[in-house]
């Protein structure tokens, strides 16, 4: 069962979170760095994600290609992620092999090589990754919606970066970004699984304690000014299916509006699954599904609220049916949102949102990897208390609070309306 959590900081600044869970013979080790697309400026967009790739390209101890083999050989599951506010690495290993994960993560916190030949080779891989995303109409639409929603704030660009920068970023840019941000004082080490905290802390100190703290990069946050009116973007491209994306200004994770907004999201588009692993639940009783899909205007609709450091987006994406149009879907969305602004959601809707969140969090607790994820992820935009108190705070939300937050956040003049307009091309074999 889940046990105690240790929160401590090493002298070099590394924040450490350890959680004992004795349900399976596994340990999940996560390192979270407080660097992501938010820390990039034009010319180096995508650099955080590229550095993440380079972290698999070797150190003197683990030359390129040996690291993934070493972990796979032990039956481990491992991966890395970069997003707006953070970059994260994890290894979930059999409990008696955790030493390897600690060794690898401590090593690549300071010793990655960034070999010029590997940088060149990886440039093509990353360009290929972006090209794969560009094949998706919803990526192309969301990229333009982000750019319209954030004129000033660096949430403006996607994590993968702009193609122009992917062609021009140099090895030294990458290495500088790595050395400036991959520092103990800019990281959280989160470990969950079948261990004793005292023993694990000794191991952590052994591997991570000697790493010098180093000078941390300072970033100035460019706050997004108030949006003076609704913005509309249209993306034209191949296909026969139109998509509509609405992006409202959402609260940052620590804002008092965030929890009522989660209830609003649940009522409007279905409960967002904040877990990284494991499926969510369907949204067929949500208001927008009923209005758009049962109303035969859209084939599907999803909504999403993300936990971020700065105010981000509350997005709604609808797949438009061919016998409908983006304009009709938008009008129906506006009707439904107006209903939310006119009258508070019902107590039953709030109760359902709470039960859904409880179930999703209970599912998350079953996976040691997911527990390790929350232990570090929550520290990227708040603290672990944010996760631990989430359900309590959710259960105190009232319909009037949801009404208040709807009136404050779902404002047409501060939204972006994006349309993917298909050019009607049909593939030919």
């Amino acid at each position, binding site marked *: 069962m889940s046990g105690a959590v240790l929160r401590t900081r090493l002298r070099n600044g590394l924040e450490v979170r350890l959680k004992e869970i004795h349900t*399976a*013979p*596994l340990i999940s080790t996560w390192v979270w760095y407080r660097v992501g697309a938010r820390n990039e400026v034009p010319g180096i967009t995508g650099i955080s994600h590229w550095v993440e790739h380079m972290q698999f390209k070797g150190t003197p101890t683990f030359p*390129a*290609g040996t690291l*993934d083999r070493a972990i*796979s*050989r*032990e*039956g*481990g599951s491992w991966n890395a992620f970069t997003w707006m506010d953070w970059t994260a690495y994890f290894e*979930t290993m*059999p409990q008696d092999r955790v030493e390897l994960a600690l060794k690898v993560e401590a090593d690549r916190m300071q010793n990655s090589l960034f070999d010029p030949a590997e940088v*060149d*080779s990886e440039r*093509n*891989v*990353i*360009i*290929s990754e*972006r*090209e*794969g995303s*560009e*094949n998706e109409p919803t990526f192309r639409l969301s990229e333009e919606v982000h750019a319209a929603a954030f004129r000033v704030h660096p949430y403006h660009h996607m994590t993968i970066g702009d193609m122009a920068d992917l062609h021009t970023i140099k090895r030294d840019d990458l290495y500088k970004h790595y050395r400036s941000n991959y520092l103990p004082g800019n990281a959280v080490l989160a470990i969950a699984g079948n261990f004793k905290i005292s023993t694990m802390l000794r191991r952590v100190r052994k591997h991570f304690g000697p790493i010098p703290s180093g000078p941390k990069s300072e970033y100035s946050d460019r706050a997004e000014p108030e949006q003076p009116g609704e913005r509309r973007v249209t993306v034209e*491209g*191949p*296909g*026969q*299916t139109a998509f509509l994306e609405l992006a409202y200004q959402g609260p940052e994770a620590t804002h008092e509006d965030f929890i009522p907004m989660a209830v609003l999201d649940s009522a409007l588009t279905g409960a967002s699954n904040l877990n990284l692993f494991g499926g969510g*639940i*369907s*949204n*067929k*009783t949500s208001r927008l599904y009923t209005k758009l899909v*049962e109303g*035969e205007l859209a*084939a599907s609709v999803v909504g999403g609220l993300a936990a971020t450091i700065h105010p981000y987006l509350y997005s709604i994406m609808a*797949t438009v*049916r*061919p*016998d409908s149009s983006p304009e009709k879907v938008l009008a129906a969305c506006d009707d439904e949102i107006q209903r939310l602004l006119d009258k508070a959601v019902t107590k039953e809707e709030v109760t*359902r949102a709470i*039960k*859904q*969140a*409880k*179930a999703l969090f*209970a599912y998350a*607790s*079953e*996976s*040691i*990897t997911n527990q390790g994820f929350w232990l570090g992820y929550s520290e990227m935009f708040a603290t672990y208390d944010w996760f631990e108190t989430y359900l309590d705070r959710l259960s105190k939300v009232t319909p009037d609070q949801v009404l208040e937050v709807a009136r404050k956040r779902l404002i047409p003049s501060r939204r972006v309306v994006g349309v993917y307009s298909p*050019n009607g*091309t*049909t*593939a*030919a*074999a």
Partner: protein
Amino acid sequence: MGQLPRLDIKTLPGPETVLRQELDNGITFLARENFSSPSVVISGYLRVGALLEGTHMAGLASMTAASLMRGTRQRKFGQIYETIESIGARLNFAAGKHSISFSAKGLAEDLGVLLDLLHEVLLTPTFPKAQVDRLRAEKLTALAIRDQETSARADLAFNQLIYADHPYAIPTEGNKETVAQLTAANARSFHRKYFSPDGMVICVVGGIKARQAANAVSRRFTSWKGNGQVPDLSVPSVSPPKGLQRTHVDLEGKSQADLVMGIPGPPRSDPDFVSAALANNILGRFGMFGRIGDIVREEAGLAYYAYSTLVGGIGPGPWQVVAGVNPSNLEKVLELIRGELSKIIKRPPDKDELDDNKANFIGRLPLQLESNEGVAGAIVNAERHSLGDDYYQKYPDLIAGVTRDDILRAAQRFIDPDNLAIASAGPPATAEKRTSSKRGRKKGAGAARKAGESQS
């Protein structure tokens, strides 16, 4: 390299920890307790699949499965989903060629609600016309999106190349022409004719006593009677491609091309399957996509993903290599992959490489069995392929016993770099489009089986 991982056999699913009961009506019930979990998972399948629908009705099994939750004699669509979503649970159905699978998850306290609903939608669906019409429109939209996806189009084209007039050439979700014709009456008729408890498997894993779960299932399902027969869901064997069978699907406006190449692979029941699965791991899975990942991604930097997959189901599912590449690199990647296919049939892997891959297969088992879904999936997989109730306890020894020659034999039996189906989809081909047939030769590809199961 070091020794292979040692697993505590007692922690793995086996006859001591998995309750198995056969009901009089042909249902096999399986359960495993996990009281460290607050949830419960239900997983299983019925012996009805897309093989029964006929070419002109392609997509009917899928449509029928998706329609089950659209209305029953007791509840309307909205009430069904109110029941399921209000408790934070999920219940899904999916059609394959050989079966219709179901999976549910909820809090353990809600097992009764989930079983009531599963029973209701399986036995008394009404297929309301308005609901099925709406579902059809949604499916047609999904098919229009699929038409523009390079990965999906390459995969469909690949299946047409290797399976031709075999049932596996037809996508389970159907195509626009057939789905547009499907009606509520078709789904109702398909359900009435084929849905039966005969051969059904239902597995419950989670925070519930196994006996209690057995009673809960038995109480609801024993009165369901079939005719005692399972429909014929066998498929013919498939000859491997002759020469390099090549096709390209033009998709204007795309940045990346997807490549799918390969052959019909061994069914799960093939005695060489486990060796082939290890060969596949060496070829395109281990670490960052195995040997193919090393050469295509790590060394040449030509693709974000390039990996191999061995489906291994009831019938001759594909053994394929998949890559997403810039169109200008398509030919280079294709040749690099063929080079790796040549190497794996020319010489066996060295001992260290094989040991690494064996260690990976054994060592990852606890992780695969960490969740209730993972355990239920493993138990159902063993039941589907008659692997035995102690399969996972024997698994470490089974893997440890595979030799270098076993790998070479399995690879040589199925892979031939000169006889491959090669399909790509993306921007109009700068590469030469061709369909050739040269130096073909026949290989035994085994008998019937299904796509989609794990490689354990």
